[in-house]
């Protein structure tokens, strides 16, 4: 039986997340993670690797990434140059096969964690091109007629921001987990993990202010966990007193250093208006 993932001292995992991770680890099937930006999807892979003490291979996907890039690439340009220079190694095509991230993970001496980050950025056919590779954990190099098989089935963590729908055939092969935005309790735990010596009243005032911002309807970009953590870091660095974060301060409507939370001037404006209206209602 493999070790169980239960979060780390830097990462708070909820029960449902743990079950999903352990199911994926035990059955050696890919785990697809979705969720709002900034809820720690990418970090999850790093923490699984750290918690289970396994090497981590990161494969970041861009809009131009092809499935082939993760397996191997045939570096035709160097071979062409070498052939014109008359190098000897040009005769063996294997010298020009460059390993991709997935191959490296397959090649790892112990079981590895492979992160396929933001799979939705790539072309719509990308996941389909990886079906067999993820299923059987093997692929074929046409140039050298060689079959590459994983020594140990890697733990594959795939993140998606939902920009494209993933094909059904691909989804069928994965376990799926949706990271929900943490509730106030979980958030307190998360913050405690990152800032162990944060003063209690500062934390509760900051969380109040944070959820007040998040709850404003119609924000273009709601602040996320990672933005809260950045903001707390700033508050600590500036040594802001807890009283300054209270909403009933009549002089100003925005929390201090709000730039870390609201990243869009329409949102800032909207928030100011909402706070202004609320205060007027309270007074009357």
């Amino acid at each position, binding site marked *: 039986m493999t070790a169980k993932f239960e979060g780390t001292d830097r990462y708070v995992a909820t029960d449902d997340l743990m*079950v*999903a991770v352990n199911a994926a680890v035990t059955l050696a*099937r890919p785990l697809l993670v979705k969720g709002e930006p900034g809820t720690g999807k990418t970090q999850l892979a790093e923490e699984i690797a750290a918690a289970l003490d396994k090497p981590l291979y990161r494969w970041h996907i861009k809009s131009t990434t092809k499935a082939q890039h993760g397996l191997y690439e045939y570096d035709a340009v160097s*071979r062409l140059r070498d052939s014109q220079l008359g190098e000897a190694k040009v005769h063996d095509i294997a010298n020009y096969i460059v390993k991709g991230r997935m191959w490296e993970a397959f090649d790892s001496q112990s079981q590895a964690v492979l992160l396929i980050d933001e799979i939705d950025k790539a072309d719509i056919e990308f996941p389909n091109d990886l079906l067999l590779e993820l299923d059987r954990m093997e692929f074929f190099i046409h140039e050298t007629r060689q079959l590459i098989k994983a020594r140990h089935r890697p733990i594959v963590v795939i993140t998606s921001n*939902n*920009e494209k729908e993933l094909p059904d055939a691909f989804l*069928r*092969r994965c376990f*799926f987990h949706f990271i*929900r935005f943490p509730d106030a309790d979980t958030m307190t735990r998360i913050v405690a993990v990152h800032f162990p010596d944060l003063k209690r009243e500062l934390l509760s005032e900051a969380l109040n202010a944070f959820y007040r911002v998040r709850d404003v309807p119609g924000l273009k970009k709601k602040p996320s966990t990672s933005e809260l953590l950045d903001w707390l870091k700033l508050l600590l660095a500036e040594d802001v007193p807890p009283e300054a974060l209270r909403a009933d301060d009549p002089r100003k409507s925005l929390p201090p250093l709000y730039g870390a939370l609201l990243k869009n001037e329409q949102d800032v404006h909207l928030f100011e208006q909402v706070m202004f209206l609320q205060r007027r209602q309270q007074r009357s």
Partner: protein
Amino acid sequence: MLNRFFLTLRDAGIPVTLTEYLALLAALDARVAVEDVDGFYYLARAALVKDEKHYDRYDRAFAAHFKGVEQAFAGLAKEIPADWLRKTLERVLTEDEKATVEALGGWDKLMETLAERLREQRGRHEGGSKWIGTGGISPFGHGGFNPEGIRIGGQGGGRRAVKVWEKREFRNLDDTIELGTRNIKIALRKLRRFARDGAAEEFDLEGTIDSTARNAGLLDLRFVPERHNAVKVLLFLDVGGSMESHVRVCEELFSAARSEFKHLEYYYFHNFLYESVWCDGRRRHAVRTPTLEILRTYPPDYRVIFVGDASMSPYEIMQPGGSIEHWNDEAGAVWMQRLTTRYPKHVWLNPEPENRWDYTASIGITRKLLDERMYPLTLEGLDRAIRALRA
């Protein structure tokens, strides 16, 4: 037992397949999460539900199937005859008595003891404080009271147990409800079709390498035409009147559509299409575009999307002179037929909820005119509409 659960999920509209079901069984077999029902709930969700928009349906199906939690532990539950558990006795406990009922501490312990008791116990049992049955204060059975009791069939008396799936926290992720600009963009993006045409002007690195290699190392440059979005869209938006309440949804659709297509032409109409439309919402009486001109200007490969609630008096569609704003020589239906014959790829998006369509006669008429290609203005409806446009 789980086979039925699987079928329940399919009936609830969650696209679960056999592969996923087998994965769940394999995970159960590997003892990934068996100790408690929450674990089972999470595990089944991770294995079977692959989209957060289905989470809410899953919660409902789960609640319906595992009403009470007995079937989650199939092996145990099989031993309990159903009629034996039927509620026959309601024992009323005072607050004092409730306080004295001792909780057995922790779910695991409860399940362990339940299994033990099941082994020990034979036959039906009522009242008392140890055996499984109805109306007692034992932690097992139903209709009784124990702060940490497990309900086995029937209605719970104490109502203490809060189940995750009863909270329905994912309600607003269901795609039949939420509609934001970003979501619409994703839906509209499906309509995009990239095509290469025109002059070859982009340097094709891969092609050059390939043909150079084939050419035994002699450089052979290759060019390809630039890729661009080849889908052209004509959007007709209903403004004013009964559409006022849908303005926000339409604005979102509009802003999303505008950034998704290179060729997007939009026109406004009021209630129904007649001999002219206008292209600026504010100056509708000053600048009008004859519909005939539109029919002439845009070739039939344009996809046409009408957005409107189609809620009006049937006369406005069927009768010449039926328009509420002006005198129209030809009925709206005639103009609609002209548009739909010229542009065979067309859909009508209706912000009214689909289940209310049957109550409005004009919606029925419009649907007939459009060959039933009317879809609700929800993400899921948008999806169906896009599919119809692509076909």
